[in-house]
């Protein structure tokens, strides 16, 4: 039984790797759903295993067993329950803190954008630095596309449309909610942190594809992204997070993807079977983890019956 618990707690490392690998072969929209879905399922499995461990002593008391009898059967019951409790408390604190930070960031972003001049869903804020982002809705206010005048000036006419379509795709698809969900699951299991970055990339790709579809020209979309990124980096990197690696970062990969034909769902029986098998693994593993909680419950109940039986006899 303990081996099963340990397996459930270790499983997300494997599950996250499989999900990332699987996402690479899918069109961006599906990749995002897959990554978010597996993050939530794997986090759910972790929590259910922890709850399973945590409630062993309570189950014992429900069965009117003295704790000392349970400890005779399973000496690790109390320490492992305590450990699970501490871990869950830590997770709860992390979850609340992350959620509050998201909200405060959104609030401050709205405050800063409030002063911008604009109408409709576009806010242009003055400034020579090149920046543009989607500002999600907050307290009943609808989401906005915030663009610095520096960004507006560095793009050509058709490319500006790409920018607006890209950010509108983020808003319409509520991409910030997917990001937030995966960020919160990373507070539950450290293995899920790797999904955060993968999701961020595929969300950008999703919005890129939508923008290319709206403007009808993949090459213009590719040029818009390349030009905006180059203009941004020429203005200095103050405050940004320059990637220190010499390997290709996310932006060139996005541009390259737009210069290729639109990604289609995998073709052919073999590829479909492969994708289905991988997807199946993720789902089955998550359900196995959920099943574990039930299993633990049963186990304690069984042990209890045996002990009561021994008392009687």
């Amino acid at each position: 039984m303990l081996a099963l618990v340990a397996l459930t707690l270790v499983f997300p490392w494997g599950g996250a790797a499989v999900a990332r690998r699987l996402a690479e072969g899918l069109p961006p929209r599906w990749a995002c759903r897959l990554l978010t879905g597996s993050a939530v399922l794997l986090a759910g499995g972790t929590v259910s295993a922890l709850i399973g461990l945590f409630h062993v002593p309570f189950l014992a008391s429900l069965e009117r067993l003295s704790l000392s009898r349970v400890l005779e059967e399973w000496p690790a019951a109390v320490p492992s329950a305590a450990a699970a409790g501490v871990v869950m408390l830590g997770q709860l604190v992390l979850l609340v803190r992350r959620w509050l930070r998201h909200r405060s960031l959104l609030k401050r972003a709205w405050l800063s954008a409030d002063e911008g001049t604009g109408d409709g869903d576009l806010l242009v804020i003055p400034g020579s630095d090149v920046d543009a982002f989607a500002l999600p809705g907050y307290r009943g206010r609808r989401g906005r596309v915030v663009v610095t005048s520096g960004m507006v000036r560095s793009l050509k006419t058709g490319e500006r449309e790409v920018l607006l379509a890209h950010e509108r795709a983020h808003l319409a698809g509520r991409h910030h909610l997917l990001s937030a969900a995966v960020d919160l699951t990373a507070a539950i299991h450290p293995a899920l942190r790797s999904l955060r970055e993968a999701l961020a990339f595929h969300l950008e790709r999703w919005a890129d594809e939508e923008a290319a579809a709206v403007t009808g020209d993949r090459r213009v979309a590719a040029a818009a992204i390349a030009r905006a990124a180059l203009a941004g980096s020429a203005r200095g990197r103050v405050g940004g997070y320059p990637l220190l690696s010499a390997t290709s970062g996310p932006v060139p990969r996005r541009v390259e993807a737009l210069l290729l034909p639109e990604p289609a769902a995998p073709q052919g029986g073999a590829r479909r079977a492969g994708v289905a098998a991988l997807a199946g693994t993720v789902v089955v593993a998550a359900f196995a983890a959920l099943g574990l909680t039930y299993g633990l419950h049963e186990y304690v109940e069984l042990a209890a019956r045996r002990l009561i039986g021994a008392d009687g006899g």
Partner: protein
Amino acid sequence: MPVKGGDERRPHGELVADVLAVLWQSGRPMSAQEVNAVLGKGLARTTTATILTRLYEKGTLRRIPAGRGFAYEPVEDAAGLVAGRMRRELESEPRRDLVLKRFVSSLSEGDEETLRRLLLEAESSSE
């Protein structure tokens, strides 16, 4: 509801946003006719003129007499500068990109080289 042309079906907000973006991009005052020409969406001149007048009344644009009508340009004021400073403060927030989806993230030095090449490639075949 009367039947309208293709572009009229777009949400009003988007149209206003496009008009505003044209003005920010040009960097000089423009008349309704000029804005229309740059937009190239085949809108009625009066549609654009109405949008520009509304933005002027809201204080988003200022206007100067030009020919028989007005030319419009965006207002850059102190409040905007404050907004710019606050936004730069947000940049140092590590979780910024989880909440605010930005158009492009920062680049490594190798990225710049690759991007210049890709930009040339994108432009050479689109024109």
